């Protein structure tokens, strides 16, 4: 579980997060949604410690992330997996090298054990063995995302973060990625936080959804409730997509 309490963050006097308190539950896919510039990425980076918060607290289970020192924070980061918007794979190493990288850095496993773990992670995200030796520039966008997920789970993390995992992907590949994220969350009992404005993801995997608007948490609910909310800002956000607007008008179930 990750809990953020009364978090505030501003840049040059511009308040980006305003007293936000959220509980992200373990074993669930927690989605943060909101318009561009609503503070989603800043919140994710605050939780990850890439930005220092102005006030408030961030708790990883029973550990206060904001109160611990750099050394402990560094150690804790080995329990965190992160999937960036563009994948952020290391260009100079192969697909399998990317997944092996955290194992090389932080474990004392033998080469054989590491190779087994790499194969386990890559097979979990359905990467064919033929692609293992390819460099990131030689694989498709969808594969990059899947390799990034494999790298993120290599150290068996307790917490998984994804920033826009479906951006730039076709709807079919997006569904594969969504399914993968929900399956991995259940299988490894992780606390998963996903930053998205992809409505298909919201409906498919949004077990808990947090709607951010202008740096404030405006709405919390599930994918079953999101289409029937009374929050005008959330409705503006969701029903900007004509398909969902039509579905609501025709009272179609999702």
């Amino acid at each position, binding site marked *: 579980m990750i809990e953020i309490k009364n978090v505030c963050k501003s840049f040059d006097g511009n308040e980006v997060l305003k007293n936000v308190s959220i509980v992200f539950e373990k074993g669930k896919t927690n989605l943060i949604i909101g318009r561009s510039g609503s503070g989603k990425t800043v919140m994710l980076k605050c939780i990850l410690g890439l930005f220092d918060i102005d006030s408030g607290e961030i708790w990883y289970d029973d550990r206060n992330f904001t109160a611990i020192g750099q050394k402990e924070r*560094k150690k804790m*980061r*080995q329990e965190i997996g992160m999937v*960036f918007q563009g994948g*952020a*794979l*290391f*260009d100079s190493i192969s697909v399998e090298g990317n997944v092996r990288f955290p194992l*090389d850095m*932080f474990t004392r496993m033998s080469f054989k054990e590491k190779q087994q773990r790499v194969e386990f992670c890559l097979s979990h995200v359905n990467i064919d063995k033929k692609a293992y030796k390819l460099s990131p520039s030689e694989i498709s966008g969808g594969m990059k995302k899947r390799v990034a997920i494999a790298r993120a789970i290599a150290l068996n993390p307790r917490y998984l973060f994804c920033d826009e995992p479906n951006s730039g992907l076709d709807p079919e590949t997006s569904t594969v990625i969504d399914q993968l994220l929900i399956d991995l969350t259940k299988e490894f009992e992780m606390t998963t936080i996903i930053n998205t404005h992809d409505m298909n993801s919201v409906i498919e995997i949004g077990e808990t959804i947090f709607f951010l608007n202008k740096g404030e948490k405006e709405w919390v609910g599930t994918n079953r409730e999101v289409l029937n909310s009374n929050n005008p800002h959330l409705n503006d956000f969701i029903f900007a997509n004509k398909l969902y607007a039509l579905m609501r008008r025709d009272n179609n179930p999702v």
Partner: protein
Amino acid sequence: MLKMVMSRPEKHRMYLKQLFYEIENLGVNSVGIVVIISIFIGGIMTIQFAYALMNPLYPSYLIGLATRDTLLLEFSSTMLALIMAGKIGSNITSEIGSMRVTEQIDSLEIMGINSASYLIMPKIIAVVFIFPFLYIISVFFGILGGLVTGPLTGTITLPEYVDGIKTIFVPYYATFSIIKSLVFGFLVASVPAYFGYYVQGGALDVGKASTQAVVNTNILILFFDLILTRLLLT
């Protein structure tokens, strides 16, 4: 930034692997261009010195001596560092800068890796280590360039040139230049790394940072050349 760069590595073996990669990538891969530039400059200098020392009052061995000392004192250390600031420096800035804008550096940080140390320290050590070797290679091939070009163009005979190379050799010139090349090696790696590490924006900004890095490194090389020459040679 230097404090972050010089902090204790997470895993020495990984840093060592990275160091060998950088020695090959930044150092060994620069040998070719150093050889080509040095041969041509050595040859051109020999012809120019022959032209400038055409007066029969000057002994002809002065051509070889002047070529050798120019290579030893200034070209193979300072001029080569300026050229390498363009080749190695822009490579470092664009590599680290691209990693920054594609969130690869954030990715390292989230894994709990000191990205500044992991990415920059091996580059600095590799370049500082390889620069004295590049200096020696440059001097050797510069002299060789003169040796081939002088007799070939008829500006000086081979025995006269060899005589000039052997005349009044001051070993301290080489020591002085190796000290300079160590300092320049540090500048060529660290200044572009700084510009790359703190770049913000996209591909265009990486390009701008790369240009800024090369310009600043060149100015610093010349500034330190002046200081070191004043301190060590006078």
